[in-house]
């Protein structure tokens, strides 16, 4: 059974249909990259999965449980959404770290708040808090930031901030981790450290969906690549096909333009 099944998702903003009838599925441990020019709908698709946008049509199923059904108004209630969106983690293009908290506090904040809802929280408060903090330290260590625990975001480079953001998303143990152009806001010399972390996650079989403009990276880490254009999936398949030897005219043209512009 796939860990994620998306069926016929559509989303319109006013008169513009940003994504149309998107369907795909994802296996546990799989890394899927979504490529395409800006305005093709790839970010909107990711935002729909994280409930930052509400799709107009379609269903989203995680581990066999329908977590969103556009035809069922109950799946839009705030309480329901809050639990269900925890299936997904999200790493934003602009990091969106909380500036008033240290790296460690950024990673622990949500976990500590969620822990208060546990029935055994009052009885085991200190134990639970310690667990969350130790887990956060271990994750920050795994992204190479064990020496930056007490640094505030403005004291960190863009690459370090994005690694904290990845740690923050990982701390809640999402089933599927989503990246929205994680290196687009970074100076070129800082993209490497972030891509390295994502590559390590892929090697550890983390289920991921990555919206990216980094073609060679997508080719290396992905199990599958989705090319989107004008709100629809134009081509979907293994990276050797979609990036290496595309079948569709539109994919070919997109990649030609991409490599002509001096990218590699």
């Amino acid at each position, binding site marked *: 059974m796939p860990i994620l099944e998306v069926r016929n998702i559509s989303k319109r903003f006013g008169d513009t249909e940003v994504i149309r009838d998107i369907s795909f599925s994802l296996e546990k441990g799989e890394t899927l990259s979504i490529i395409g020019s800006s305005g093709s709908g790839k970010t909107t698709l990711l935002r729909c999965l994280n409930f930052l946008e509400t799709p107009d049509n379609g269903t989203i199923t995680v581990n066999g449980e329908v977590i969103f059904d556009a035809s069922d108004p109950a799946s839009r209630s*705030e309480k329901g959404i809050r639990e269900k969106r925890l299936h997904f983690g999200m790493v934003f293009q*602009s990091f*969106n770290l909380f500036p008033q908290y240290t790296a460690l506090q950024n990673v622990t904040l949500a976990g500590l708040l969620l822990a208060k809802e546990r029935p055994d929280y009052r009885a085991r408060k200190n134990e639970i808090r310690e667990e969350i903090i130790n887990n956060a330290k271990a994750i920050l260590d795994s992204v190479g930031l064990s020496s930056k625990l007490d640094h505030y975001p403005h004291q960190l480079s863009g690459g370090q901030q994005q690694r904290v953001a990845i740690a923050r998303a990982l701390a809640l143990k999402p089933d599927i981790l989503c990246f929205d152009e994680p290196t687009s806001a970074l100076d070129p010399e800082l993209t490497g450290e972030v891509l390295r972390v994502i590559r390590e996650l892929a090697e550890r079989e983390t289920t991921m969906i990555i919206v990216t403009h980094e073609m060679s990276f997508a080719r290396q880490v992905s199990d599958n690549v989705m090319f989107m254009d004008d709100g629809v999936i134009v081509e979907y398949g293994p990276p050797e096909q979609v990036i290496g030897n595309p079948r569709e005219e539109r994919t070919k043209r997109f990649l030609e333009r991409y490599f002509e512009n001096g990218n590699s």
Partner: protein
Amino acid sequence: MNIYISSLFEGFWLNIKLFVLTLAMAIPLGLVITFGSMAKFRPLKWLVRTFVWIIRGTPLMLQLFVVLYAPGLLFGVPMKSRMTAAIVAFVVNYAAYFSEIYRGGIESIPKGQYEAGAVLGMTRSQVFFKVILLQVIKRIVPPMSNEIITLTKDTALARVIGIAEIIMCAERFTKQGLIWPLFSTGLFFLAFNGVLTIVLGWIERRLDYFKV
């Protein structure tokens, strides 16, 4: 000489009282007005914004007269005390200004902060109180400091409805041919605002540990 000075202190005590009570009530009331002016329910939003426009668009001096006389003239229930009228006028006036500062502060926080909180499973109120609020406070401290310092001096306006604040007290002596008590009132304001500047600067520095 002593009688002049004690009279000035007596007057300034009213300025301080007006200042403290106005701040204590206008700061929270301003937040209520902010939520109204940012409401998704349009009629409420426009009602509140019109109210803010009227309060900010007319002189505080006029508002003092309106609050003092309108209840008696329109509803037959005269204002019981001049001080109450002054406090009401000042609180409403300053709450309107504060609400606009708050609104600017809240709207300047990037949408990504709310989204980051939401995708981490935080409730709306957790996002507001744990993530947004401190960033807003940091942003509004400088403009609020400005308004608060303006308020100390605006309290002198209360004399137009017969509150014996410091400048009114000092003016009485000019009729006896003494001008220096009037001039010296400036020193009271200067000293008070000096202390205020130090306190507000301290608050600003306390929030220096992060950048927004």
